């Protein structure tokens, strides 16, 4: 592979030389094609990213097979057509056409036959109009689904494109322009590297085709490895700040938070690897960023495209503009401005992807501190220089040890800085440090040891193609790189085969099984769940798959939340449904009766010969996302009246007292209200993680200094030591050890009050429509309910053998849809039919 070391040719290539570079022999093509087939299997086996991406990858690989044999002059147009076709193919025809139309208009403006200054003015005007639409200040005729993709295609690349048009003399073809903006596989990824237009144009078949394709496969494989590692960290290693109570967990927290970045580096490798298959020999997107040995080194290794973008558009122009102040001053000012702009542009990016402006102090702090450190490091390098090497660096024990020590220190500094950036609040981050005063066990050495091992192994110099001194050495290095990539490819495919990993043992099999699909981690599941209860939107601020789930959520999703469904009433419960409220939603009408329940307008006094049950619970009971009459409560009531199970009662009335966002302690207030309706039965619907949600709510009550009218709960609060001036994480840490006790008080109180009034208390467990964290507390919760004296109906398997996606309201909303409510109603009816005494018996349960 001589071409590997002569890749950087001089001057413009001749047509013949370019044609020769772009050719690939049938044998080499067959080798590449086999590897691509394996890549496709790997993508499928591990369900990399999304079904849409896997389909697009299959189309792109098929396209590659055609593309590789086209005359060179037709290859870029072919890539462009494939890229344009990928848009409606992935987004649907209408959305796709809208996106293409808006994008084409933006490209067209860049080429208007007017001066650059006026083109810039027109572009800014159109961008302002689009921004107003993105912020929903102005209406738009397309759906929200296209915004993140449109944003990812144009928010930065349009700046680069316009800049290059201004400064480049070479004419730009339509294929280059459209291929650059709509490039495969951008339509699948809201997070996309800022590919440079000049690099995109000049890199096209600038290096031997076979070498380029192989490099592409290497990067795709490397990307997939990053993504699988990311999944492992995301599913198994990440911790919530409130779980960090000792030094070992502190190390785990900061390391895992930083390593979540593997998602970005994985995606970027995958994306650029695919572009290599179409001849684009682009720079690498990341360069072993865990091995950065200084702040400037870190900035140069991580997200290289971003660094290049900032350098090109802001840094160099600013340094040149300020040159009269002296090089040192110019570099200092320009570097600081670059970091300030990096922060601002993250907010700008967030706006286009999510439609809201992001402003978080931890972002400003992170970029401010990192910018200051990079400036200090740059000034040091300006004065003293830094060591560079031609070829393979000479390795001595002394130099090796120094590099490893610097890299290790840098790794931890970056981990700590990263934890500041990703924390939900400054207080949260500060509270983390108290964990270092906890007990130091051997476990505290695990992550420092692992990090050291990775850095030592990574620091051992190896022969690289670019630095090889002879063609033979370069060829050997090239072959080794290929062999390693193919070995990973084959190894991962083998491991992913069920028949293989299930033989290794249950734990490994479970782990591999979970790594084979992309789903929310237990922490993000908890955040998603918390999002329902507390309406938190900040949970998706940073670096998590939840971010992507939320990015698909329309801003007016079930707009009733903002349209007055609930009102603040103060006291322990804080809020209630607004009586006589009516709203039309996409899923049907929501009607709240005069008593503040989503139900028919029952009389306050129970009619004779009627069995009346009050149903308490959160949004699933209220019927979030289904119309009136479609809630399981309404369906069950209807069926119990049409198909009676007991001659003792002529009528059955189920009174819906479900309130979205209500936590177990709030049900005490709801129960007090419900008893005025003289029920015979209490159906308490438990919706998962009852203990944690109880502790979480009590922490909120204390922080908001709300009255606690229940002495037993007040006593727990007192002994936990939680205080109103504590931040959220510290308050949760104080109350978490008492979560079972809090729930026990709630359940005991409900049962005791029920029995006093002759009400039969029935506890019904309702699973969420997503596998995950809600399952963690099911067994102890059920035990607490049993011990309290509830009759138990466990519906944990109500969705068994069903495709959860057909039951879930939406990807970002785990509530059951109308089908889910029907399933619940049917199961409850069956449970009552199997044991009619459960609700129609003569007397209430005794403890």
């Amino acid at each position: 592979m001589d071409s590997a070391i002569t890749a950087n040719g001089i001057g413009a290539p001749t047509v013949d030389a370019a044609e020769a570079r772009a050719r690939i022999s049938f044998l080499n093509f067959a080798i590449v094609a086999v590897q691509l087939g394996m890549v496709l299997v790997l993508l499928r086996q591990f369900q990399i990213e999304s079904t849409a991406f896997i389909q697009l990858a299959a189309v792109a690989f098929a396209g590659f097979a055609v593309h590789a044999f086209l005359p060179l002059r037709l290859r870029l147009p072919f890539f462009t057509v494939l890229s344009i076709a990928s848009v409606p193919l992935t987004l649907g025809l209408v959305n796709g056409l809208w996106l293409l139309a808006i994008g084409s208009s933006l490209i067209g403006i860049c080429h208007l036959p007017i001066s650059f200054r006026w083109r810039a003015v027109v572009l800014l005007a159109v961008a302002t109009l689009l921004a107003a639409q993105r912020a929903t200040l102005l209406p738009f005729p397309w759906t929200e689904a296209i915004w993140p993709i449109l944003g990812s295609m144009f928010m930065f690349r349009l700046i680069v494109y316009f800049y290059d048009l201004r400064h480049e003399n070479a004419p730009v073809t339509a294929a280059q322009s459209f291929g650059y903006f709509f490039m495969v596989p951008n339509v699948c990824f809201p997070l996309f590297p800022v590919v440079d237009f000049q690099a995109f144009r000049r890199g096209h078949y600038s290096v031997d085709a076979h070498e380029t394709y192989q490099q592409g496969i290497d990067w795709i494989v490397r990307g997939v490895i990053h993504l699988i590692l990311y999944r492992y960290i995301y599913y198994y290693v990440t911790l919530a700040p409130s779980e960090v109570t000792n030094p070992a967990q502190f190390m785990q927290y900061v390391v895992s938070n930083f390593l979540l970045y593997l998602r970005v580096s994985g995606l970027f490798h995958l994306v650029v690897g695919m572009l290599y298959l179409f001849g684009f020999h682009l720079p690498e997107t990341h360069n072993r960023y865990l091995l950065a040995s200084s702040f400037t080194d870190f900035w140069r290794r991580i997200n290289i495209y971003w660094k290049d973008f900032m350098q090109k558009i802001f840094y160099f122009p600013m340094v040149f503009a300020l040159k009269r102040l002296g090089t040192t001053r110019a570099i200092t000012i320009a570097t600081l401005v670059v970091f300030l702009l990096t922060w601002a542009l993250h907010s700008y990016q967030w706006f286009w992807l999510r439609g809201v402006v992001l402003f978080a102090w931890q972002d400003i702090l992170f970029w401010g501190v990192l910018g200051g450190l990079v400036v200090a490091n740059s000034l040091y390098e300006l004065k003293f220089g830094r060591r560079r090497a031609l070829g393979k660096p000479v390795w001595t024990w002394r130099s090796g040890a120094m590099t490893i020590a610097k890299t290790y220190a840098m790794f931890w500094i970056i981990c700590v800085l990263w934890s500041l950036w990703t924390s939900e609040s400054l207080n949260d981050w500060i509270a983390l440090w108290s964990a270092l005063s906890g007990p130091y066990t051997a476990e505290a050495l695990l992550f420092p040891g692992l990090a050291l091992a990775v850095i030592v192994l990574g620091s051992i110099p190896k022969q690289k193609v670019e630095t090889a001194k002879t063609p033979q050495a370069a060829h050997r290095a090239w072959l080794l790189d290929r062999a390693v990539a193919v070995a990973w490819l084959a190894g991962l495919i083998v491991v992913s085969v069920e028949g293989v990993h299930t033989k290794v043992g249950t734990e490994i099999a479970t782990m591999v099984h979970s790594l084979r699909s992309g789903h929310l981690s237990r922490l993000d599941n908890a955040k998603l769940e918390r999002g329902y209860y507390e309406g938190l939107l900040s949970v998706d601020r940073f670096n998590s798959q939840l971010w992507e789930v939320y990015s698909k959520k329309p801003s007016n999703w079930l707009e009733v939340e903002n349209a007055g469904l609930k009102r603040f009433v103060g006291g322990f419960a804080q809020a209630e449904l607004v009586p006589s409220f009516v709203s039309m939603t996409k899923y049907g009408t929501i009607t709240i009766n005069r008593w503040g329940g989503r139900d028919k307008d029952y009389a306050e006094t129970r009619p004779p010969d009627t069995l009346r049950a009050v149903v308490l619970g959160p949004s699933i009971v209220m019927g979030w996302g289904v119309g009136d009459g479609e809630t399981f409560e309404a369906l069950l009531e209807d069926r119990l009246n049409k198909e009676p199970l007991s001659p003792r009662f002529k009528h059955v009335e189920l009174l819906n007292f479900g309130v979205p966002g209500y936590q177990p302690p709030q049900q005490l207030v709801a129960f007090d209200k419900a008893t005025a309706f003289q029920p015979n039965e209490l159906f308490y619907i438990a919706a998962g993680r009852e203990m944690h949600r109880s502790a979480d709510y009590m922490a909120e009550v204390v922080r908001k200094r709300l009255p606690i009218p229940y002495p037993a709960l007040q006593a727990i609060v007192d002994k936990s030591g939680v205080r109103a001036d504590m931040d959220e994480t510290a308050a949760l840490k104080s109350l978490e050890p008492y979560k079972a006790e809090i729930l026990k008080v709630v359940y005991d109180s409900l049962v005791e009050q029920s029995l006093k009034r002759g009400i039969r208390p029935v506890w019904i467990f309702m699973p969420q429509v997503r596998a995950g964290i809600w399952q963690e507390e099911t067994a102890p919760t059920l035990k607490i309910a049993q011990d309290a004296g509830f009759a138990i109906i466990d519906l944990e398997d109500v969705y068994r053998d069903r495709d959860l996606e057909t039951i879930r309201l939406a990807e970002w909303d785990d509530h059951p849809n109308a089908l889910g409510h029907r399933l619940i109603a049917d199961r409850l009816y069956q449970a009552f039919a199997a044991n009619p005494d459960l609700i129609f018996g003569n007397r209430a349960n005794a403890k």
Partner: protein
Amino acid sequence: MSDAVSEKIKDYLMREFLPGENPDELTTTTPLITGGILDSIAALKLVIFLEEEYGVAFEAHEVNRENLDTIARIVQLLIAKKPAVAQ
């Protein structure tokens, strides 16, 4: 003449950024930016050297991989800016 320019640039690069390295390993096609020898600060220092040495003026958009990645490309740029350099 362009050989003399190449030599001068090579001398500068060796002296400023690669002290102690073997000069034979730095050829006119050795990748400088992609090879990690020229970072943004080094590129700026090199540009200032070229401006002072050859009396040419660089613009911000010219400080890029395309123009500065090899000694050969640097020489090409210099010649394009000031043809007299080649004579």
